[in-house]
C-alpha cells in the first residue's frame, strides 16, 4: 500500500537536526529540543509500527516514479521494528546526553550530529533501493566520524583513524559490489533485484558479488575476521556516544546482511557454510577477547562482537526458526548494549575509572544502582526468563532441525563465555573491595552533578532495563513479531508484491 508518511521518521530527525543547528549557541535549548524531538520521533515510529502491523507492508515511491525506476521506501515489519528500536535508543541516549555530555562538546554541535546519525539509521532501515542504502550508510558513518572525534582526545583520534579507515574501506567494497550487481542486472531496486538475480545463469559471478556484500557489511557489523577496528575505537568516545554506537551501528550491518541475503542472494550450501564458520569464529574470538580485558567498556565492545556471532549464526542456519531467533536476539541486543554502555558511563562518573582492577565495592556503596545494573548484565547472559535466553533458544532449535550440532556447541560455549565474563565483571566491580583512589580534577563526579543531571543519567537506564525485562517476560509477543518477520524474510512474495505491484 502506498503511504507517503513512512519517510516521516527520517524527515523528522532531519527537522530536529536543522532546528538544533539554529540554536547553535544555546546549549540548554538544544538539550530541550533534542529530548522533546526524540520523544515525538518515538511516537511517530510507534504509529508507523502499528500501521505496518495492522495494514501490512507500506511503500513510498519517491517522486511517483514506479518501482524499478524510482527510489522506493519500504516499511515492512522488520524495518518498522528497527525504526522503533532506533527511536527508543535515540530517546534514551538523548536524555542520557543531557546529564553526561560536557558543554564543550555540545558547543561543537553534538546534538545536531546525533540526530543526523539517527536520521541515517532510519533511512537505512526504510529504504528499498540498494544504492540508496549505500547513501544512508554514508550518512551514518560521516555522522559517526564526527561523534567519535568530537572532543579530540588522543585516544579518540587514534581510535577514529582505525574506525574511519575501515569504514571507508567497507564503503568502497559495498560500492564495488553494487557496481557489479548493476552490471549483472541493470537494476538497483531490491525487490526487482530479487527477481533478476534468480534468473542469472552465471552463478559463480553471483556468488562473488554476494561475497563482496558479505565483506562490506561484515566490516560494518564487525564479524570475524573483519572486526579489529571495533575494540580499538568503541571505548574512546564519551559513554553516551559509545551507547548509540554499541547499540545501533553494528546492527545496521546485521540488518543489511539479513536483508540482502534473504531477498537478493539466496545463500547456497557454500554460502551458508561460510557464514556458519564466520559466525562460530566471531562468537569464539569475541568471547575470548572479552575474557582478557580489564577496561569494562572494552569488555562490552568484545561482547558486541561475540553476540553479532549469534545473529550471524541465524543467517548461517537459514531456517525460519533460526532467523526468528536472530531477529529476537537483534531486538534484545540493541536495547541491552545501549543500556550497558550507558551503565558503564554511570560507573565511571561515580568511581572515576573504567578499570576492573581499581573498581570494586560498588554493591556495598550503591546497592540500588547495583540491582538496577544487574538487569541488563544478566539479560545479556541470557538467564531465563530474561531477554537474552529466548533468542538463543530459537537459534538452538533452528540448528537442531538442520542437525548443525557443531554450531549448537559453539552457541552454548558463547553463552557460557558470556556468563564467565559477566560473573567476573560482577565479582570485580560490585563485590570485591575496591582500591580507593584520589579524586581526579578533570572528571566531574556524579555527586557533584545537579539533581536534574543525575536523573537524566539514571532514568534512561531504568527505562531500558524495564524494556529488556518486558522483552524477557513478555517474550510471547516478541516471539510472534520475530517469527512473522522471519517468515516474511524467507518468503518475500508479499514484499515483492508491495513494491512492484504485481
Amino acid at each position, binding site marked *: 500500500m502506498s503511504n507517503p508518511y513512512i519517510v516521516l521518521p527520517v524527515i523528522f530527525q532531519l527537522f530536529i537536526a536543522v532546528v538544533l543547528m539554529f540554536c547553535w549557541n544555546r546549549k540548554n535549548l538544544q538539550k530541550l529540543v533534542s529530548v522533546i524531538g526524540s520523544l515525538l520521533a518515538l511516537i511517530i515510529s510507534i504509529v508507523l509500527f502499528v500501521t505496518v502491523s495492522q495494514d501490512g507492508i507500506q511503500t513510498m515511491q519517491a517522486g511517483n516514479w514506479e518501482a524499478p525506476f524510482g527510489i522506493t521506501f519500504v516499511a515492512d515489519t522488520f524495518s518498522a521494528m528497527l525504526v522503533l528500536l532506533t527511536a527508543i535508543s535515540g530517546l534514551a541516549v538523548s536524555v542520557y546526553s543531557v546529564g553526561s555530555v560536557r558543554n564543550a562538546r555540545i558547543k561543537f554541535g553534538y546534538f545536531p550530529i546525533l540526530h543526523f546519525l539517527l536520521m541515517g539509521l532510519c533511512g537505512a532501515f526504510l529504504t528499498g533501493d540498494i544504492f540508496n542504502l549505500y547513501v544512508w550508510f554514508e550518512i551514518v558513518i560521516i555522522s559517526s566520524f564526527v561523534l567519535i572525534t568530537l572532543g579530540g582526545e588522543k585516544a579518540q583520534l587514534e581510535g577514529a583513524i582505525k574506525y574511519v579507515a575501515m569504514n571507508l574501506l567497507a564503503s568502497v567494497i559495498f560500492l564495488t559490489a553494487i557496481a557489479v550487481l548493476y*552490471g549483472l542486472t541493470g537494476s538497483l531496486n531490491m525487490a526487482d533485484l530479487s527477481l533478476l538475480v534468480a534468473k542469472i545463469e552465471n552463478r559463480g559471478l553471483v556468488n562473488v558479488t554476494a561475497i563482496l556484500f558479505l565483506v562490506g557489511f561484515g566490516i560494518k557489523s564487525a564479524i570475524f575476521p573483519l572486526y579489529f577496528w571495533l575494540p580499538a575505537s568503541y571505548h574512546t568516545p564519551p559513554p553516551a556516544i559509545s551507547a548509540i554506537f554499541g547499540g545501533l551501528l553494528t546492527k545496521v550491518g546485521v540488518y543489511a546482511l539479513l536483508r540482502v541475503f534473504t531477498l537478493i542472494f539466496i545463500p547456497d550450501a557454500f554460502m551458508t557454510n561460510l557464514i556458519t564458520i564466520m559466525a562460530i569464529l566471531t562468537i569464539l574470538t569475541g568471547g575470548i577477547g572479552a575474557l582478557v580485558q580489564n577496561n569494562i567498556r572494552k569488555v562490552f565492545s568484545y561482547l558486541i562482537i561475540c553476540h553479532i556471532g549469534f545473529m550471524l549464526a541465524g543467517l548461517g542456519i537459514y531456517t525460519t526458526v533460526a532467523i526468528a531467533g536472530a531477529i529476537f536476539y537483534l531486538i534484545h541486543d540493541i536495547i541491552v548494549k545501549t543500556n550497558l554502555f550507558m551503565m558503564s558511563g554511570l560507573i565511571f562518573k561515580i568511581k572515576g575509572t573504567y578499570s576492573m582492577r581499581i573498581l570494586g565495592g560498588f554493591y556495598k556503596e550503591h546497592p540500588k544502582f547495583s540491582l538496577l545494573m544487574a538487569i541488563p548484565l544478566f539479560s545479556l547472559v541470557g538467564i531465563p526468563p530474561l531477554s537474552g535466553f529466548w533468542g538463543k533458544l530459537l537459534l538452538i532449535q533452528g540448528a537442531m532441525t538442520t542437525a548443525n550440532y557443531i554450531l549448537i556447541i559453539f552457541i552454548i560455549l558463547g553463552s557460557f563465555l558470556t556468563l564467565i565474563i559477566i560473573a567476573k565483571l560482577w565479582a570485580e566491580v560490585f563485590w570485591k573491595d575496591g582500591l580507593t583512589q584520589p579524586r581526579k580534577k578533570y572528571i566531574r563526579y556524579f555527586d557533584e552533578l545537579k539533581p536534574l543531571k543525575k536523573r537524566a543519567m539514571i532514568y534512561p537506564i531504568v527505562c531500558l532495563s524495564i524494556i529488556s525485562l518486558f522483552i524477557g517476560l513478555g517474550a510471547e509477543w516478541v516471539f510472534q513479531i520475530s517469527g512473522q518477520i522471519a517468515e516474511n524474510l524467507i518468503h518475500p512474495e508479499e514484499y515483492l508484491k508491495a513494491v512492484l505491484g504485481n
Partner: protein
Amino acid sequence: MEILLVVIIGLLYAAGIYLMLRRSLVKLIIGLILLGNGANLLIFLLGKIVKGNPPLIGETEKMLTEIYADPVPQALILTAIVISFGLQAFAIILIKRAYKVVKTDDLDEMNATDEDL
C-alpha cells in the same frame, strides 16, 4: 576502451590496497582515494560504454529504439564522488589533527587505544 578501463581499474584497486597496507597515515588516505576512484570507474564500465548514443528520444519516436548510453551509472558516480569528497576531506583533516596530537605518522606507534588502563 573497455580493456583499457579494466586495466586502469585493476591498477587503481591494487595501488589503493597496497597503499592502505603501508604504515603511513598519508599513504592510507591516498590509498582510500585511489580505491574510491577505482570503484567509480568500475560503475562507469559496468554500466556498458556506448559511443555517441545519448539517451534522448527523438521528436518523431515514442521510445528509445537503439542501444543507448545508460544515464543511471553516471548519476551513481556523481553521488559517489560527492560522498567520497566529503568523507576524504574529513579524513584528511582527521589525519592532520591526529598527527599534531600523537606526533607521529606511523600507524604502528598509535597504540594508545590498546593500553590497559
